[in-house]
């Protein structure tokens, strides 16, 4: 057994956030199927899909209903069987743009398309594996929703020597990755083996925060029982936010800094979320497209739960299944409380990138002037000067923001979290980034 678990790593940056993992000990339950699945045609980072079906068509669970010929895109599938009864527009949280969305009205049977698992998964070629991953519509399930088949096919000149499997789950409240590791650990590792076959790295690491001892032990046992303990190691990390950010992981585990504007693959690393490799296993070995995922529904709901949810299920259905809201719940967040998106409409559907749904009571805070305490600078994992960026952004001095490397900010939010003056630093930074992007387009 010795040697699977490496020495614990910790970072001088970031913050200890209240963990509030209410659902860590709750097994995954299946959420009720929605009567109407609201399926956004853009559930990935990149290009939206075109609808492949029209109003009145009958679709089966797992049937591809949207696809794109653009490079950075992933198809979407029907997540229940039934009839296409209409289209609507839904705001895509990351881009804040409306996206064409199909409505599937359930026939109550959940009849699946015929799955086509390969006869012998071990004999698949790399191209066949990548094509299966693409056709299954797999995107990064950690939240960014980047199409996985692209991440797994790096350009020829980029040699990948390390895979990091991300089971950090550093956001407060979220426990979906934790439960996936505990309950679907074999699939997670099988998916990891598939991507190891594709990329043939020298090493694979599984990064898990030390607040998930049981997951670390469980994954260790599985690694040993699968006989891959020489190639796959577990790196326990101090529980601190944002440990699970890709660029933080490359620095902590390998000492490599991803160049500004670059990707982890520029330093020979590919990082996948544990849920993503589980989905890759299901796509490649079982032939099953991505139609559901584990979502933590938590916070101010009567019974917080880890739910296996079909995409397109309205938030209302999930909150009601968890006993409804309690107290003065006035905020609904898709994703974690540090980086997630507040939602005002409970008819909004879950999408591939939704890893948690948090209901909480928010108290308003008064913004004050910066007292230059420097706390934001101390905690910034990208070693930026958040207060300076926010000040320049407020004053419209966007060029200065650029000089101060504003594009390095991935909006983790530790600066705003730590700010005694309650300055919405991240929001100011987003404004400046958007203005800079507009200018770049004009030129």
């Amino acid at each position, binding site marked *: 057994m010795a040697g699977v678990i490496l020495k614990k790593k910790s970072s001088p940056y970031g913050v200890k*956030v*209240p963990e509030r993992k209410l659902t860590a000990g709750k097994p995954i339950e299946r959420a009720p199927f929605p009567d109407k699945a609201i399926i956004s045609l853009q559930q990935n980072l990149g290009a939206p899909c075109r609808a492949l079906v029209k109003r009145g068509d009958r679709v089966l669970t797992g049937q591809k209903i949207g696809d794109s010929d653009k490079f950075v895109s992933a198809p979407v599938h029907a997540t229940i069987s039934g009839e296409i009864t209409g289209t609507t527009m839904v705001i895509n949280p990351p881009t804040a743009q409306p996206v064409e969305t199909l409505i599937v009205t359930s026939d109550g049977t959940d009849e699946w398309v015929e799955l086509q698992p390969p006869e012998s998964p071990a004999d698949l070629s790399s191209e066949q594996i990548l094509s299966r991953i693409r056709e299954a519509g797999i995107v990064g399930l950690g939240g960014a929703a980047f199409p996985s088949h692209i991440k797994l096919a790096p350009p020829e000149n980029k040699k990948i020597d390390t895979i990091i499997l991300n089971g950090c789950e550093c956001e*407060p409240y979220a426990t979906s990755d934790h439960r996936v590791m505990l309950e679907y650990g074999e699939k997670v590792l099988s998916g990891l083996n598939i991507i190891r076959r594709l990329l043939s790295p020298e090493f694979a690491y599984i990064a898990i925060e030390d607040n998930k001892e049981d997951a670390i032990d469980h994954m260790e046992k599985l690694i040993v029982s699968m006989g891959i303990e020489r190639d796959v190691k577990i790196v326990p990390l101090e529980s601190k936010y944002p440990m699970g950010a890709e660029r933080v992981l490359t*620095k902590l585990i390998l*000492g490599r*800094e*991803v*160049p*500004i504007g670059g990707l982890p693959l520029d*330093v*020979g690393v590919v990082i996948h979320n544990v849920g993503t490799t589980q989905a890759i296993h299901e796509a490649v070995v079982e032939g099953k497209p991505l139609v559901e995922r584990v979502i933590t529904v938590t916070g101010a709901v009567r019974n917080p739960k880890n739910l296996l949810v079909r995409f397109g299920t309205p938030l209302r259905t999930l*909150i*009601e299944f968890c006993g*409804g809201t309690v107290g003065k*719940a*006035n*905020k*609904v*967040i898709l994703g974690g*409380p*540090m*980086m*997630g998106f*507040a939602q*005002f*409409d*409970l*008819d909004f559907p879950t999408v591939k990138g939704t890893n948690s749904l*948090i209901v*909480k009571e*928010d108290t308003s*805070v008064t913004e*004050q*002037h*910066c*007292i*230059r*305490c*420097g706390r934001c*600078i*101390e905690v910034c994992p*990208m*070693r*930026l*000067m958040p207060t*300076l960026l926010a000040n320049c952004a407020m004053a419209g001095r966007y060029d200065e923001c650029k000089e*101060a*490397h504003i594009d*390095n900010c991935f*909006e983790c*939010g*530790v600066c*705003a*979290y730590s*700010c*005694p*003056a309650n300055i*919405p630093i*991240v929001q100011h930074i*987003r404004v400046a980034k958007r203005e800079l992007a507009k200018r770049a387009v004009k030129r």
Partner: protein
Amino acid sequence: MTSPREFLISPSPHLWRGPSVSRIMYLVMLALVFPAGAAIYFFGFRAVAVLGVCTGAALLTEYLCKKMRGHAFVMDGSAVVTGLLLALTLPPTVPLWMAAVGAVFAIAIVKEAFGGLGHNIFNPALGARAFVSVSFSLPMTTWVKPTGFAVDVVTSATPLSGASGWPQFDPAAYQAMFLGNISGSLGETSALAILIGGCLLLGLRVISWRIPATYIGVVAILAFAFGQDPLFHILAGGLMLGAFFMATDYVTSPLTNRGKVMFGVSLGVLTMLIRHFGGMPEGVCYSILFMNAMTPLIDRYTRERPYGLVKRAKSAD
């Protein structure tokens, strides 16, 4: 089920952590209780009066300034901290109206005229002290022996103003300087009280060790280099108060860690240059004010290399 309109929309993050600005100010006040207590112990009612007048005048001025500028007055505690700090830098026998003038100057001119909390270039308390010193030089350099609550006062030189050349002190004198039983400004005499307050701020992570440690360290090293007694220079004058409570003022000191070190080192050098070569016995106040003005420049040149900025020096290894 709540209707849609009742849900709030706001940008991430959706979690906030204290300490709030006012909590930080109250912690500083808590730490100031020790030097202020020592001042009252050694200088009696005079100390109570000066502390009271400065704090009251500072608060009132802040309130009036905010009204004049059409801003809401927020009781964030910063005016109280400024008032207390100013009082602690004044001689015990200072006429109360002078103390009040100082407090008004600190808030109205040094702080609010520049935009209020967070925007002032100079430390308000020290700016006001400098103003009062040059305006009323005689009362500002009249020092008395600690009297406790007695009424009679005996004028006496401070260790620094009395020291001509290289002072030779006996252990009893050092003990008096450490405890604060010497003449000097209200709050600067007791190194012990300042240390307790300073350690409280360090322990609560309100201030960083970088400025006080480098400041005091450099003063000690230079004192030694000038052939003088380092301990004397640490305990005498306003160094301790300045290093822990004035130079660490967030608004007027550098943001970056390297900047803080540079700030502390420069303060030490300036203070010793003034003490050793200058015409004044003490240099803490002017050193800090001078370095306050350098802060934006220091911040500009001590930024950390951002993550992932490849300078070809250290790329992926």
